[in-house]
């Protein structure tokens, strides 16, 4: 594998990871909303660190 | 016999003994929980720079309340 292909591969992985992370965060907030009765509260983690 | 007035009408520095607590709802309950019961002495310290709310001394501590809440409290 050439150096350039390796680079592209690494870059692709990182970008995919970032996309996945953002998507997972969004999904978890939606999920938290559906799960609890009154659609509120996030337990320990609402995906924003506060 | 000393006259009855509302807490709202007291001036800064005046004191009164609580006679009746009128009004309804959460504000009244909150005031009672804080110690505003019949027979308690309450002292008006000052009003806010813009006129409202007012600061009073009750059972040794300072409390703020608005005119609209103080209007329901009768003192003498």
């Amino acid at each position, binding site marked *: 594998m050439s150096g350039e292909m390796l680079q592209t591969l690494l870059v692709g992985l*990182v970008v995919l990871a970032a996309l996945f992370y953002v998507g997972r965060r969004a999904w978890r907030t939606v999920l938290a909303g559906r799960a609890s009765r009154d659609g*509120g509260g996030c337990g320990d983690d609402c995906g924003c660190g506060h | 016999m000393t006259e009855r007035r509302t807490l709202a009408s007291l001036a800064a520095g005046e004191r009164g003994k609580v006679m009746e607590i009128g009004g309804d709802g959460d504000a009244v309950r909150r005031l009672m929980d804080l110690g505003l019961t019949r027979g*308690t002495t309450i002292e008006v310290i000052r009003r806010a720079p813009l006129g409202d709310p007012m600061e009073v001394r009750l059972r040794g501590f300072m409390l703020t309340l608005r005119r609209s809440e103080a209007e329901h409290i009768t003192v003498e």
Partner: protein
Amino acid sequence: MDVAEAGAIPATHAPSPAPVRGGGLLHVALVGNPNTGKSTLFNALTGMRQRVGNYSGVTVERVEGRYRDADGHPVSVLDLPGTYSLSASSPDEEIALSVLLGRAQGVARPDVVVVVADAQNLERNLFLASQVLELGLPTVIALNQVDAALAAGIRVDAIELTLELGAPVVATVATKGEGLELLKRAVAKAVGLPPAGRRFELEPEAARAVAPLEACLVRGGLNPDAAGMEALRLLAVTQIGPHLAHVEGLAAAVEAARAAVEAAGITARSLEAEARYGWIAGVVERTATQTHTGKKTLTDRIDAVALHRVWGPLLFIVLMALVFQSIFSWAAPLMDRVEALFNALGGAVGSILPPGDLRSLVVDGVIGGVGSVLVFLPQIVILFLFIGILEDTGYMARAAFIMDRFMRSVGLHGRSFIPLLSGYACAVPGVMSTRTIEAPKDRLATIMVLPLMSCSARIPIYTLLIGAFIPPVAVAGIFNLQGMTLLAMYLLGTLTALAMAAVFKKTLLKGRARPMIMELPPYRIPSPRSLAMSVGHRASLFLRRAGTVILSLTIVLWALATYPKSHAAPGTPPAAAQEEQLAHSLLGRMGHAIEPAVRPLGYDWKIGVGIVSSFAAREVFVATMGTIYGVGSADETTPALRDRLKAERHERTGLPVYTPLVAVGLMVFYVYAMMCMSTMAVVVRETGGGRKGMAWAGFQFAYMLALAYGAAFLVYRGGLALGFH
């Protein structure tokens, strides 16, 4: 200073030997009035081993920590929200009561309750204590701030008080760490002790009238002690809390009890307060002595100024200006250093990696992305430090007192003022600090308008555009047109925020004005350790998560701007090649796609790209502009970027793209537009999380975008009509 030994229990309660916990986790809950130093005590007990989260279903902070007692057994401490009573009229009080009754979801019922009482305000604090003592849980009283009490001439006999209350009383000074070991020992011993129960008796008629209600509650599962407490409490409340929803026939029983009490000639709703305080008066008389010093306390003397008709507001303005100023000017050198650090890091890494996509990703994407987040840190730290100081010293209550009248004229509460002010630095901590606002509708309204307060992220944009397009001419002798434009932008945001708050409160979020019944605590010197811990805690949370979210977004944006790649002909100069690359990439195509939408505002597709890219974080706009105009890593002071902007011409018409009018319109757009992923995330969480939170955040985004577009349109078209260009 005497710290009384805990342990003298009245002979009527035969104590059983303390059971061995067997290494299991002991659950302790801390309750107490606000301003009793409860948090300081909590911090002193648990140190850095704390966890902050949420109770499910409500936006009440859940603070837990741990310590090891003298025997090495682990103890978990839950710091319940400060409450004046268990009357459950606010979410905070409701949670405290639910947890103590063992009815809170996901929270273990505490094994021991520690009531933190302020020795300076014994009467009022004993109200809560008397309620807690009736819950049937082993209870310890931590009599805190005895040093301040002594200074005020108040001496409390802890041993006498123990006998009166039927629960061990330990004198503590949390800020100095005194009495803590005794407290821990008292907690460990308390596990085996029988609960104190009610220490006074109701009048026979009242007791008779309330008995059926107590029976109803016992049938619903409460133990007899707690039933007694709840029965008294229910006589005065306006609604039955959710934690009692499962008790059958409760509403009817409460009505019946009220009627019976009234029939006996007693006012139902004041029964609890009068009964408890009647008992408390006797207790205080027997256990505490007050030597009136006659001279005014320090608090009174400070308040004579702080709450003065004239000096009060003046002092307030000076303090606010100081906070404001410090957030900008003191943070600035720190921010510059952080930025310089990241630039250096970028340069270093850039020289190591071979040219190509990976390097671009790491240097422009990762390092640039993380840097843009860390730049916020000094401001966050300074802001939280000031808020912490203002709160812990007790000044915050005075500020709310002064501002209440004014806030009410726009339908808000005095307490909204400080969070709104924090918005000038950054909306994120501002939104978080709205937790001090009790009324949910007031809190929501404050959150909804907070981002309109021009946060510091807008400064790079203002600086760039003002520097490039507003001439530095003097106005009326001393004022500078540039400075005034900046001020105008701030005023615009602030006034709109207040106006929108008024609108919301009259329409969507209409609600009755919540009472402004608030304690003005005595001034005190905040504990530096406690302050440092809470500031450090917030800072680390912010860093950890905001860094991950913004980092990921920057990576995604980078990808959007880099792919698909264009392949420029070999001879093209780098600036033109970059431009072509941008036009060809996804981000560029998005810019072209929205160009028709922004053209009425006077923008071209490149500005469109800038706007699109900055949806996640405003400052990205400046960096993007730098990239687009091929100036490498630009910041707002780079003269090259300013000149490039001035020189830019429309392809077809040859007219300048950027004119003062366009610049002002663009700034107005940024005054209003909600373009901050971090803020949106916090708003989602603080407005209830999940679907509800997202709905509110979505609404906020939409209305602010509408404002932005409308205002920018008005400015541009209006300006054209008036003859500007």
